[in-house]
Protein backbone atom coordinates (compact mmCIF):
# COMPACT_ATOMS: atom_id res chain seq x y z
CA UNK A 1 0.00 0.00 0.00
CA UNK A 2 2.66 2.53 0.98
CA UNK A 3 4.54 1.52 -2.17
CA UNK A 4 1.60 2.59 -4.33
CA UNK A 5 1.44 5.88 -2.53
CA UNK A 6 5.17 6.51 -2.80
CA UNK A 7 5.13 5.66 -6.50
CA UNK A 8 2.17 7.92 -7.08
CA UNK A 9 3.90 10.76 -5.29
CA UNK A 10 7.07 10.22 -7.31
CA UNK A 11 5.24 10.33 -10.62
CA UNK A 12 3.18 13.31 -9.58
CA UNK A 13 6.31 15.26 -8.73
CA UNK A 14 7.93 14.27 -12.02
CA UNK A 15 4.86 15.43 -13.89
CA UNK A 16 4.72 18.71 -12.00
CA UNK A 17 8.37 19.58 -12.53
CA UNK A 18 7.63 21.82 -15.48
CA UNK A 19 4.94 23.76 -13.60
CA UNK A 20 7.35 24.19 -10.73
CA UNK A 21 10.15 25.37 -13.00
CA UNK A 22 8.00 27.84 -14.89
CA UNK A 23 6.83 29.29 -11.59
CA UNK A 24 10.41 29.46 -10.36
CA UNK A 25 11.61 31.25 -13.48
CA UNK A 26 8.77 33.69 -13.27
CA UNK A 27 9.45 34.42 -9.60
CA UNK A 28 13.13 34.85 -10.33
CA UNK A 29 12.44 37.28 -13.18
CA UNK A 30 10.07 39.26 -10.98
CA UNK A 31 12.48 39.37 -8.08
CA UNK A 32 15.42 40.56 -10.15
CA UNK A 33 13.45 43.18 -12.02
CA UNK A 34 11.20 44.45 -9.22
CA UNK A 35 13.36 47.30 -7.80
CA UNK A 36 13.41 48.97 -11.22
CA UNK A 37 9.65 49.39 -11.07
CA UNK A 38 9.99 51.48 -7.91
CA UNK A 39 12.98 53.53 -8.98
CA UNK A 40 13.31 54.91 -11.66
CA UNK A 41 9.85 53.50 -12.38
CA UNK A 42 8.47 51.63 -15.38
CA UNK A 43 8.00 54.90 -17.27
CA UNK A 44 11.74 54.89 -17.86
CA UNK A 45 11.34 51.89 -20.15
CA UNK A 46 9.09 53.86 -22.46
CA UNK A 47 11.79 55.92 -24.06
CA UNK A 48 13.27 55.92 -27.53
CA UNK A 49 16.83 55.76 -26.33
CA UNK A 50 18.67 52.70 -25.06
CA UNK A 51 21.96 53.98 -23.58
CA UNK A 52 22.45 51.71 -20.60
CA UNK A 53 26.05 52.74 -19.91
CA UNK A 54 26.87 56.44 -19.83
CA UNK A 55 28.87 58.93 -17.84
CA UNK A 56 26.29 61.61 -18.48
CA UNK A 57 22.76 60.23 -18.46
CA UNK A 58 21.71 56.60 -18.79
CA UNK A 59 18.62 55.74 -20.83
CA UNK A 60 16.71 52.47 -20.51
CA UNK A 61 14.11 52.98 -23.21
CA UNK A 62 13.16 49.70 -24.78
CA UNK A 63 10.95 51.16 -27.52
CA UNK A 64 13.63 50.90 -30.19
CA UNK A 65 14.26 47.29 -29.19
CA UNK A 66 10.55 46.47 -29.35
CA UNK A 67 10.22 48.04 -32.79
CA UNK A 68 13.42 46.24 -33.84
CA UNK A 69 11.91 42.91 -32.84
CA UNK A 70 8.57 43.79 -34.40
CA UNK A 71 10.19 44.88 -37.67
CA UNK A 72 12.32 41.76 -38.02
CA UNK A 73 9.44 39.46 -37.02
CA UNK A 74 6.93 41.20 -39.27
CA UNK A 75 9.25 41.10 -42.28
CA UNK A 76 10.06 37.49 -41.61
CA UNK A 77 6.36 36.58 -41.49
CA UNK A 78 5.86 38.39 -44.79
CA UNK A 79 8.16 35.79 -46.33
CA UNK A 80 7.29 32.85 -44.09
CA UNK A 81 3.51 32.80 -44.40
CA UNK A 82 3.14 32.57 -48.19
CA UNK A 83 6.13 30.26 -48.59
CA UNK A 84 5.03 27.89 -45.85
CA UNK A 85 1.34 27.80 -46.64
CA UNK A 86 1.87 27.27 -50.36
CA UNK A 87 4.56 24.70 -49.62
CA UNK A 88 2.32 22.87 -47.17
CA UNK A 89 -0.53 22.80 -49.70
CA UNK A 90 1.80 21.35 -52.29
CA UNK A 91 3.18 18.68 -50.00
CA UNK A 92 -0.16 17.70 -48.54
CA UNK A 93 -2.38 17.85 -51.61
CA UNK A 94 -0.48 17.90 -54.87
CA UNK A 95 2.91 16.23 -54.48
CA UNK A 96 3.31 12.65 -55.60
CA UNK A 97 4.50 10.20 -52.93
CA UNK A 98 7.99 10.32 -54.43
CA UNK A 99 8.14 14.10 -54.30
CA UNK A 100 6.95 14.02 -50.71
CA UNK A 101 9.68 11.54 -49.82
CA UNK A 102 12.25 13.96 -51.19
CA UNK A 103 10.81 17.22 -49.83
CA UNK A 104 10.04 16.21 -46.26
CA UNK A 105 13.55 15.16 -45.17
CA UNK A 106 14.96 18.44 -46.49
CA UNK A 107 12.46 20.44 -44.49
CA UNK A 108 13.36 18.47 -41.41
CA UNK A 109 17.03 19.01 -42.18
CA UNK A 110 16.45 22.75 -42.35
CA UNK A 111 14.89 22.60 -38.89
CA UNK A 112 17.92 20.85 -37.47
CA UNK A 113 20.54 23.40 -38.57
CA UNK A 114 21.85 25.21 -35.46
CA UNK A 115 20.93 28.87 -35.53
CA UNK A 116 24.53 29.95 -35.08
CA UNK A 117 25.43 28.12 -38.29
CA UNK A 118 22.61 29.87 -40.09
CA UNK A 119 23.86 33.13 -38.61
CA UNK A 120 27.28 32.41 -40.01
CA UNK A 121 25.79 31.77 -43.43
CA UNK A 122 23.88 35.05 -43.12
CA UNK A 123 27.01 36.96 -42.19
CA UNK A 124 29.19 35.60 -44.96
CA UNK A 125 26.71 35.11 -47.82
CA UNK A 126 23.46 36.97 -47.25
CA UNK A 127 24.76 40.24 -45.80
CA UNK A 128 27.20 41.00 -48.66
CA UNK A 129 24.48 40.10 -51.13
CA UNK A 130 22.03 42.56 -49.61
CA UNK A 131 24.74 45.19 -49.28
CA UNK A 132 25.55 45.02 -52.98
CA UNK A 133 21.97 44.58 -54.12
CA UNK A 134 20.73 47.74 -52.43
CA UNK A 135 24.02 49.64 -52.43
CA UNK A 136 24.14 49.94 -48.66
CA UNK A 137 26.99 50.78 -46.31
CA UNK A 138 26.41 47.56 -44.44
CA UNK A 139 24.49 44.40 -45.23
CA UNK A 140 23.65 43.91 -41.57
CA UNK A 141 20.01 44.93 -41.55
CA UNK A 142 16.51 44.02 -40.42
CA UNK A 143 15.94 42.44 -43.82
CA UNK A 144 18.96 40.17 -43.50
CA UNK A 145 17.77 39.02 -40.08
CA UNK A 146 14.24 38.51 -41.34
CA UNK A 147 15.46 36.33 -44.20
CA UNK A 148 17.44 34.13 -41.84
CA UNK A 149 14.53 33.89 -39.43
CA UNK A 150 12.35 32.84 -42.33
CA UNK A 151 14.63 29.87 -42.86
CA UNK A 152 14.17 29.00 -39.20
CA UNK A 153 10.40 29.48 -39.09
CA UNK A 154 9.57 27.66 -42.32
CA UNK A 155 10.04 24.09 -41.03
CA UNK A 156 7.76 24.71 -38.03
CA UNK A 157 5.04 26.48 -39.97
CA UNK A 158 5.17 24.18 -42.98
CA UNK A 159 5.03 20.99 -40.91
CA UNK A 160 2.17 22.16 -38.67
CA UNK A 161 0.21 23.59 -41.61
CA UNK A 162 0.69 20.36 -43.49
CA UNK A 163 -0.65 18.43 -40.48
CA UNK A 164 -3.67 20.74 -40.41
CA UNK A 165 -4.32 20.23 -44.13
CA UNK A 166 -3.82 16.47 -43.90
CA UNK A 167 -6.29 16.24 -41.02
CA UNK A 168 -9.11 17.64 -43.16
CA UNK A 169 -11.39 14.62 -43.68
CA UNK A 170 -11.12 12.95 -47.06
CA UNK A 171 -14.92 13.08 -47.21
CA UNK A 172 -14.86 16.87 -47.77
CA UNK A 173 -12.65 16.40 -50.77
CA UNK A 174 -14.88 13.63 -52.14
CA UNK A 175 -17.98 15.77 -51.72
CA UNK A 176 -16.39 18.71 -53.49
CA UNK A 177 -15.08 16.65 -56.38
CA UNK A 178 -18.39 14.83 -56.77
CA UNK A 179 -20.02 18.25 -57.28
CA UNK A 180 -17.71 18.87 -60.20
CA UNK A 181 -15.14 21.10 -58.47
CA UNK A 182 -11.63 21.16 -59.88
CA UNK A 183 -8.67 20.25 -57.67
CA UNK A 184 -7.80 23.93 -57.26
CA UNK A 185 -11.36 24.87 -56.31
CA UNK A 186 -11.45 22.01 -53.83
CA UNK A 187 -8.15 23.08 -52.25
CA UNK A 188 -8.94 26.77 -51.92
CA UNK A 189 -12.65 26.65 -51.16
CA UNK A 190 -12.98 23.56 -49.00
CA UNK A 191 -9.67 22.23 -47.72
CA UNK A 192 -7.92 25.48 -46.81
CA UNK A 193 -10.97 26.99 -45.04
CA UNK A 194 -11.36 23.74 -43.08
CA UNK A 195 -7.67 23.72 -42.16
CA UNK A 196 -7.46 27.47 -41.49
CA UNK A 197 -7.56 27.33 -37.67
CA UNK A 198 -4.65 24.89 -37.71
CA UNK A 199 -2.76 27.05 -40.18
CA UNK A 200 -3.31 30.15 -38.04
CA UNK A 201 -2.05 28.30 -34.98
CA UNK A 202 0.99 27.19 -36.98
CA UNK A 203 1.71 30.79 -37.93
CA UNK A 204 1.33 31.91 -34.32
CA UNK A 205 3.85 29.32 -33.18
CA UNK A 206 6.12 30.41 -36.02
CA UNK A 207 5.90 34.01 -34.79
CA UNK A 208 6.72 32.80 -31.29
CA UNK A 209 9.78 31.02 -32.58
CA UNK A 210 10.95 34.03 -34.60
CA UNK A 211 10.45 36.57 -31.83
CA UNK A 212 12.40 34.45 -29.38
CA UNK A 213 15.28 33.64 -31.71
CA UNK A 214 18.53 35.19 -30.57
CA UNK A 215 21.77 33.99 -32.07
CA UNK A 216 21.14 34.56 -35.76
CA UNK A 217 19.66 38.02 -35.28
CA UNK A 218 22.50 38.96 -32.99
CA UNK A 219 24.91 38.10 -35.78
CA UNK A 220 23.25 39.74 -38.77
CA UNK A 221 20.96 42.61 -37.78
CA UNK A 222 23.69 45.12 -37.02
CA UNK A 223 22.62 45.71 -33.42
CA UNK A 224 22.15 49.43 -33.47
CA UNK A 225 19.43 50.52 -31.12
CA UNK A 226 17.74 53.09 -33.27
CA UNK A 227 14.06 53.44 -33.80
CA UNK A 228 13.24 52.78 -37.44
CA UNK A 229 10.75 51.03 -39.67
CA UNK A 230 13.12 50.73 -42.62
CA UNK A 231 13.86 47.10 -43.57
CA UNK A 232 17.30 48.07 -44.83
CA UNK A 233 18.44 49.78 -41.62
CA UNK A 234 20.39 47.97 -38.92
CA UNK A 235 18.22 47.26 -35.90
CA UNK A 236 18.55 45.64 -32.53
CA UNK A 237 16.06 43.15 -31.18
CA UNK A 238 15.07 42.48 -27.58
CA UNK A 239 16.64 39.04 -27.57
CA UNK A 240 19.91 40.22 -29.08
CA UNK A 241 20.14 42.95 -26.45
CA UNK A 242 19.83 40.53 -23.58
CA UNK A 243 22.30 38.09 -25.13
CA UNK A 244 24.86 40.76 -25.93
CA UNK A 245 24.76 42.68 -22.67
CA UNK A 246 23.92 40.20 -19.94
CA UNK A 247 27.48 38.92 -19.81
CA UNK A 248 29.03 42.27 -19.04
CA UNK A 249 26.46 44.04 -16.95
CA UNK A 250 27.22 44.68 -13.31
CA UNK A 251 25.09 42.49 -11.12
CA UNK A 252 22.06 44.19 -9.59
CA UNK A 253 22.51 47.50 -11.41
CA UNK A 254 19.68 49.37 -13.11
CA UNK A 255 21.01 48.15 -16.44
CA UNK A 256 20.83 44.57 -15.15
CA UNK A 257 17.24 45.08 -14.01
CA UNK A 258 16.27 46.70 -17.30
CA UNK A 259 17.50 43.61 -19.14
CA UNK A 260 15.22 41.54 -16.95
CA UNK A 261 12.32 43.75 -17.90
CA UNK A 262 13.07 43.06 -21.56
CA UNK A 263 12.94 39.37 -20.69
CA UNK A 264 9.58 39.83 -19.02
CA UNK A 265 8.15 41.67 -22.01
CA UNK A 266 9.35 38.87 -24.30
CA UNK A 267 7.84 36.26 -22.01
CA UNK A 268 4.53 38.11 -22.01
CA UNK A 269 4.48 38.38 -25.82
CA UNK A 270 5.23 34.70 -26.43
CA UNK A 271 2.77 33.71 -23.71
CA UNK A 272 0.01 35.73 -25.35
CA UNK A 273 0.82 34.27 -28.77
CA UNK A 274 0.64 30.75 -27.37
CA UNK A 275 -2.65 31.44 -25.64
CA UNK A 276 -4.15 32.80 -28.86
CA UNK A 277 -2.91 29.79 -30.82
CA UNK A 278 -4.39 27.40 -28.25
CA UNK A 279 -7.67 29.28 -28.18
CA UNK A 280 -7.96 29.08 -31.96
CA UNK A 281 -7.23 25.35 -31.92
CA UNK A 282 -9.71 24.61 -29.14
CA UNK A 283 -12.39 26.84 -30.58
CA UNK A 284 -12.34 25.00 -33.90
CA UNK A 285 -12.15 21.58 -32.30
CA UNK A 286 -8.62 20.84 -33.48
CA UNK A 287 -7.43 20.34 -29.92
CA UNK A 288 -9.19 19.21 -26.77
Amino acid at each position, binding site marked *: MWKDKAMRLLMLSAASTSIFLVALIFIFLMKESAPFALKPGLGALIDRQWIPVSFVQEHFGILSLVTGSALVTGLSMLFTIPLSVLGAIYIAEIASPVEREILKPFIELLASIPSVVLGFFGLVVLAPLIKNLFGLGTGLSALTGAMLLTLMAIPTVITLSEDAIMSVPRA*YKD*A*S*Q*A*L*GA*SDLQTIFQ*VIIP*AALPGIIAAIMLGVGRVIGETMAVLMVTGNSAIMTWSPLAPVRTMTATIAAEMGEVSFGSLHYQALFWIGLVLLAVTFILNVIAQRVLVRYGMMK
Partner: protein
Amino acid sequence: MVETSPFPADTEHVITTSKVNFFYGATQALFDITMDIPGRRVTAFIGPSGCGKSTFLRIFNRMNDTISGTRLEGDVRINGEDIYENGSNVVRLRRKVGMVFQKSNPFPKSIFDNVAYGPRIHGTHDRQQLAEIVEKSLIRSALWDEVKDRLETNALGLSGGQQQRLCIARALAVGPDILLMDEPASALDPKSTIRIEDLIGELRNEYTIVIVTHNMQQAARISDYTAFFYEGHLVEFNATKKIFTKPREKQTEDYITGRFG
Protein backbone atom coordinates in the same frame (compact mmCIF):
# COMPACT_ATOMS: atom_id res chain seq x y z
CA MET B 1 -28.60 -15.08 -70.22
CA VAL B 2 -31.59 -12.79 -69.97
CA GLU B 3 -34.53 -14.51 -71.60
CA THR B 4 -37.05 -11.72 -71.31
CA SER B 5 -36.24 -8.08 -70.70
CA PRO B 6 -37.49 -6.92 -67.32
CA PHE B 7 -38.11 -3.46 -68.70
CA PRO B 8 -41.31 -2.19 -70.30
CA ALA B 9 -41.01 -1.59 -74.03
CA ASP B 10 -40.80 2.20 -73.77
CA THR B 11 -37.99 2.21 -71.20
CA GLU B 12 -35.25 4.75 -71.81
CA HIS B 13 -31.86 3.53 -70.61
CA VAL B 14 -29.88 6.42 -69.22
CA ILE B 15 -26.77 4.54 -68.14
CA THR B 16 -25.45 1.72 -70.29
CA THR B 17 -22.33 -0.30 -69.64
CA SER B 18 -20.78 -2.96 -71.78
CA LYS B 19 -18.13 -5.47 -70.70
CA VAL B 20 -16.80 -3.31 -67.89
CA ASN B 21 -13.72 -4.63 -66.12
CA PHE B 22 -12.19 -2.66 -63.30
CA PHE B 23 -8.85 -3.01 -61.56
CA TYR B 24 -7.29 -1.69 -58.35
CA GLY B 25 -3.65 -2.11 -59.32
CA ALA B 26 -3.32 -5.78 -60.20
CA THR B 27 -6.52 -6.80 -58.42
CA GLN B 28 -9.57 -7.11 -60.60
CA ALA B 29 -12.67 -5.84 -58.82
CA LEU B 30 -15.30 -6.04 -61.57
CA PHE B 31 -15.71 -8.63 -64.31
CA ASP B 32 -17.42 -8.07 -67.67
CA ILE B 33 -20.37 -6.12 -66.41
CA THR B 34 -22.95 -5.32 -69.03
CA MET B 35 -25.97 -3.54 -67.72
CA ASP B 36 -28.59 -1.00 -68.81
CA ILE B 37 -30.01 1.23 -66.11
CA PRO B 38 -33.41 2.76 -66.82
CA GLY B 39 -34.09 6.48 -66.48
CA ARG B 40 -36.37 7.98 -63.84
CA ARG B 41 -36.46 4.79 -61.85
CA VAL B 42 -34.78 3.63 -58.68
CA THR B 43 -32.22 0.91 -59.24
CA ALA B 44 -30.73 -0.80 -56.21
CA PHE B 45 -27.35 -2.57 -56.10
CA ILE B 46 -27.21 -5.29 -53.46
CA GLY B 47 -24.61 -7.85 -52.50
CA PRO B 48 -22.20 -8.73 -49.70
CA SER B 49 -19.36 -6.40 -48.69
CA GLY B 50 -16.56 -6.31 -51.23
CA CYS B 51 -18.73 -7.52 -54.09
CA GLY B 52 -17.91 -4.44 -56.16
CA LYS B 53 -21.26 -2.68 -56.01
CA SER B 54 -19.82 0.60 -54.68
CA THR B 55 -16.93 0.44 -57.13
CA PHE B 56 -19.40 0.01 -59.96
CA LEU B 57 -21.49 2.94 -58.71
CA ARG B 58 -18.44 5.20 -58.57
CA ILE B 59 -17.69 4.45 -62.22
CA PHE B 60 -20.74 6.48 -63.27
CA ASN B 61 -19.33 9.80 -62.02
CA ARG B 62 -15.69 8.80 -62.43
CA MET B 63 -15.03 9.07 -58.71
CA ASN B 64 -12.68 6.11 -59.00
CA ASP B 65 -10.38 8.41 -60.97
CA THR B 66 -9.37 10.01 -57.69
CA ILE B 67 -7.85 6.73 -56.49
CA SER B 68 -4.40 6.21 -57.98
CA GLY B 69 -3.59 2.93 -59.69
CA THR B 70 -7.10 2.17 -60.88
CA ARG B 71 -7.91 1.10 -64.43
CA LEU B 72 -11.11 0.58 -66.38
CA GLU B 73 -11.84 -1.47 -69.49
CA GLY B 74 -15.07 -1.52 -71.43
CA ASP B 75 -17.67 0.98 -72.41
CA VAL B 76 -19.68 3.24 -70.08
CA ARG B 77 -22.24 5.58 -71.59
CA ILE B 78 -24.55 8.12 -70.05
CA ASN B 79 -27.28 9.35 -72.36
CA GLY B 80 -25.35 7.72 -75.17
CA GLU B 81 -22.12 9.58 -74.45
CA ASP B 82 -18.93 7.67 -73.71
CA ILE B 83 -17.88 9.17 -70.35
CA TYR B 84 -14.40 7.64 -70.41
CA GLU B 85 -13.58 8.87 -73.88
CA ASN B 86 -10.42 10.94 -74.15
CA GLY B 87 -11.24 14.60 -73.64
CA SER B 88 -14.57 13.84 -72.02
CA ASN B 89 -15.45 16.57 -69.53
CA VAL B 90 -15.45 15.31 -65.93
CA VAL B 91 -16.80 18.58 -64.54
CA ARG B 92 -19.80 18.48 -66.85
CA LEU B 93 -20.32 14.79 -66.08
CA ARG B 94 -20.38 15.38 -62.33
CA ARG B 95 -22.87 18.22 -62.70
CA LYS B 96 -25.20 15.77 -64.36
CA VAL B 97 -24.43 12.86 -62.03
CA GLY B 98 -24.71 13.80 -58.36
CA MET B 99 -23.51 11.65 -55.51
CA VAL B 100 -24.52 11.10 -51.90
CA PHE B 101 -22.04 9.27 -49.70
CA GLN B 102 -22.39 6.67 -47.00
CA LYS B 103 -21.35 8.98 -44.21
CA SER B 104 -22.93 12.41 -44.42
CA ASN B 105 -20.18 14.85 -45.27
CA PRO B 106 -21.38 18.45 -45.13
CA PHE B 107 -18.59 21.03 -45.31
CA PRO B 108 -17.80 22.89 -42.09
CA LYS B 109 -19.63 25.89 -43.52
CA SER B 110 -23.10 27.35 -43.02
CA ILE B 111 -26.15 25.45 -44.26
CA PHE B 112 -26.58 28.06 -46.98
CA ASP B 113 -22.96 27.87 -48.13
CA ASN B 114 -23.10 24.08 -48.25
CA VAL B 115 -25.99 24.07 -50.69
CA ALA B 116 -24.65 27.07 -52.61
CA TYR B 117 -21.20 25.52 -52.97
CA GLY B 118 -21.95 23.63 -56.19
CA PRO B 119 -23.70 26.49 -58.01
CA ARG B 120 -20.91 28.86 -56.92
CA ILE B 121 -18.06 26.76 -58.30
CA HIS B 122 -19.99 26.49 -61.53
CA GLY B 123 -20.19 30.25 -61.80
CA THR B 124 -23.40 31.42 -60.12
CA HIS B 125 -22.63 34.32 -57.77
CA ASP B 126 -25.81 36.35 -57.80
CA ARG B 127 -27.07 36.31 -54.21
CA GLN B 128 -30.74 36.35 -55.19
CA GLN B 129 -30.29 33.51 -57.65
CA LEU B 130 -28.30 31.47 -55.10
CA ALA B 131 -30.97 32.03 -52.46
CA GLU B 132 -33.58 30.64 -54.85
CA ILE B 133 -31.49 27.58 -55.67
CA VAL B 134 -30.81 26.95 -51.98
CA GLU B 135 -34.47 27.23 -51.04
CA LYS B 136 -35.60 25.01 -53.90
CA SER B 137 -32.99 22.36 -53.15
CA LEU B 138 -33.78 22.31 -49.43
CA ILE B 139 -37.51 22.03 -50.13
CA ARG B 140 -36.78 19.15 -52.49
CA SER B 141 -34.71 17.36 -49.87
CA ALA B 142 -37.45 17.88 -47.25
CA LEU B 143 -35.17 19.89 -44.99
CA TRP B 144 -36.39 23.44 -45.61
CA ASP B 145 -38.93 23.62 -42.79
CA GLU B 146 -36.38 22.49 -40.25
CA VAL B 147 -33.59 24.88 -41.25
CA LYS B 148 -35.15 27.90 -42.96
CA ASP B 149 -34.63 30.07 -39.86
CA ARG B 150 -31.00 29.14 -39.40
CA LEU B 151 -29.46 28.98 -42.83
CA GLU B 152 -26.40 30.86 -41.62
CA THR B 153 -25.58 28.43 -38.82
CA ASN B 154 -22.91 25.79 -39.20
CA ALA B 155 -24.10 22.64 -40.94
CA LEU B 156 -22.17 20.47 -38.49
CA GLY B 157 -24.75 21.44 -35.84
CA LEU B 158 -27.44 19.41 -37.63
CA SER B 159 -28.37 15.87 -36.64
CA GLY B 160 -27.02 12.95 -38.67
CA GLY B 161 -30.25 12.51 -40.61
CA GLN B 162 -30.52 16.23 -41.31
CA GLN B 163 -26.90 16.31 -42.45
CA GLN B 164 -27.59 13.54 -44.94
CA ARG B 165 -30.63 15.37 -46.31
CA LEU B 166 -28.44 18.48 -46.54
CA CYS B 167 -25.97 16.48 -48.61
CA ILE B 168 -28.82 15.45 -50.89
CA ALA B 169 -29.85 19.11 -51.21
CA ARG B 170 -26.24 20.02 -52.00
CA ALA B 171 -26.16 17.39 -54.74
CA LEU B 172 -29.52 18.56 -56.16
CA ALA B 173 -28.41 22.20 -56.24
CA VAL B 174 -26.22 21.72 -59.31
CA GLY B 175 -29.16 20.32 -61.26
CA PRO B 176 -28.23 16.69 -61.90
CA ASP B 177 -30.32 14.15 -63.82
CA ILE B 178 -28.84 11.17 -62.06
CA LEU B 179 -28.32 10.65 -58.33
CA LEU B 180 -25.87 8.03 -57.10
CA MET B 181 -26.35 7.02 -53.49
CA ASP B 182 -23.76 4.92 -51.73
CA GLU B 183 -25.52 3.38 -48.73
CA PRO B 184 -26.98 6.77 -47.81
CA ALA B 185 -28.84 5.55 -44.73
CA SER B 186 -26.48 2.95 -43.33
CA ALA B 187 -25.12 5.29 -40.65
CA LEU B 188 -28.53 6.60 -39.60
CA ASP B 189 -31.08 5.64 -36.97
CA PRO B 190 -34.30 3.92 -38.14
CA LYS B 191 -36.40 7.09 -38.03
CA SER B 192 -33.92 9.09 -40.13
CA THR B 193 -33.63 6.12 -42.47
CA ILE B 194 -37.37 6.19 -43.12
CA ARG B 195 -37.16 9.90 -43.91
CA ILE B 196 -34.39 9.30 -46.44
CA GLU B 197 -36.38 6.46 -48.00
CA ASP B 198 -39.48 8.65 -48.23
CA LEU B 199 -37.36 11.33 -49.84
CA ILE B 200 -36.07 8.87 -52.45
CA GLY B 201 -39.69 7.98 -53.13
CA GLU B 202 -40.47 11.65 -53.79
CA LEU B 203 -37.46 12.12 -56.07
CA ARG B 204 -37.96 8.96 -58.12
CA ASN B 205 -40.11 10.54 -60.81
CA GLU B 206 -37.66 13.32 -61.57
CA TYR B 207 -34.29 11.65 -61.21
CA THR B 208 -32.57 8.48 -62.24
CA ILE B 209 -31.52 7.06 -58.89
CA VAL B 210 -28.97 4.34 -58.35
CA ILE B 211 -28.60 3.27 -54.75
CA VAL B 212 -26.15 0.88 -53.17
CA THR B 213 -27.52 -0.73 -50.06
CA HIS B 214 -26.66 -3.41 -47.58
CA ASN B 215 -30.18 -3.56 -46.40
CA MET B 216 -32.31 -5.89 -48.51
CA GLN B 217 -35.59 -4.72 -47.00
CA GLN B 218 -34.60 -1.24 -48.05
CA ALA B 219 -33.93 -2.36 -51.61
CA ALA B 220 -37.29 -4.13 -51.65
CA ARG B 221 -39.08 -1.07 -50.26
CA ILE B 222 -37.71 1.65 -52.46
CA SER B 223 -36.39 0.28 -55.74
CA ASP B 224 -37.98 -0.57 -59.06
CA TYR B 225 -35.06 -2.71 -60.21
CA THR B 226 -32.47 -4.61 -58.27
CA ALA B 227 -29.05 -5.85 -59.29
CA PHE B 228 -27.30 -8.51 -57.26
CA PHE B 229 -23.50 -8.49 -57.31
CA TYR B 230 -21.22 -11.21 -56.05
CA GLU B 231 -17.43 -11.22 -56.10
CA GLY B 232 -17.22 -8.63 -58.85
CA HIS B 233 -19.81 -10.26 -61.10
CA LEU B 234 -23.31 -9.09 -61.88
CA VAL B 235 -25.27 -12.20 -60.96
CA GLU B 236 -28.79 -11.04 -61.62
CA PHE B 237 -30.59 -7.87 -62.62
CA ASN B 238 -34.33 -7.74 -62.72
CA ALA B 239 -37.46 -6.00 -61.53
CA THR B 240 -37.24 -5.77 -57.76
CA LYS B 241 -40.44 -7.72 -57.31
CA LYS B 242 -39.02 -10.58 -59.36
CA ILE B 243 -35.70 -10.61 -57.55
CA PHE B 244 -37.34 -10.84 -54.16
CA THR B 245 -40.06 -13.32 -55.06
CA LYS B 246 -38.72 -15.47 -57.85
CA PRO B 247 -34.97 -15.05 -58.27
CA ARG B 248 -33.61 -16.83 -61.29
CA GLU B 249 -30.21 -17.65 -59.82
CA LYS B 250 -29.55 -19.88 -56.85
CA GLN B 251 -26.90 -17.45 -55.52
CA THR B 252 -29.41 -14.60 -55.48
CA GLU B 253 -31.91 -16.70 -53.61
CA ASP B 254 -29.32 -17.76 -51.05
CA TYR B 255 -28.34 -14.15 -50.46
CA ILE B 256 -31.80 -12.65 -50.14
CA THR B 257 -32.97 -15.41 -47.88
CA GLY B 258 -29.99 -14.72 -45.66
CA ARG B 259 -28.11 -17.94 -46.19
CA PHE B 260 -24.90 -15.99 -46.70
CA GLY B 261 -23.74 -12.42 -46.77
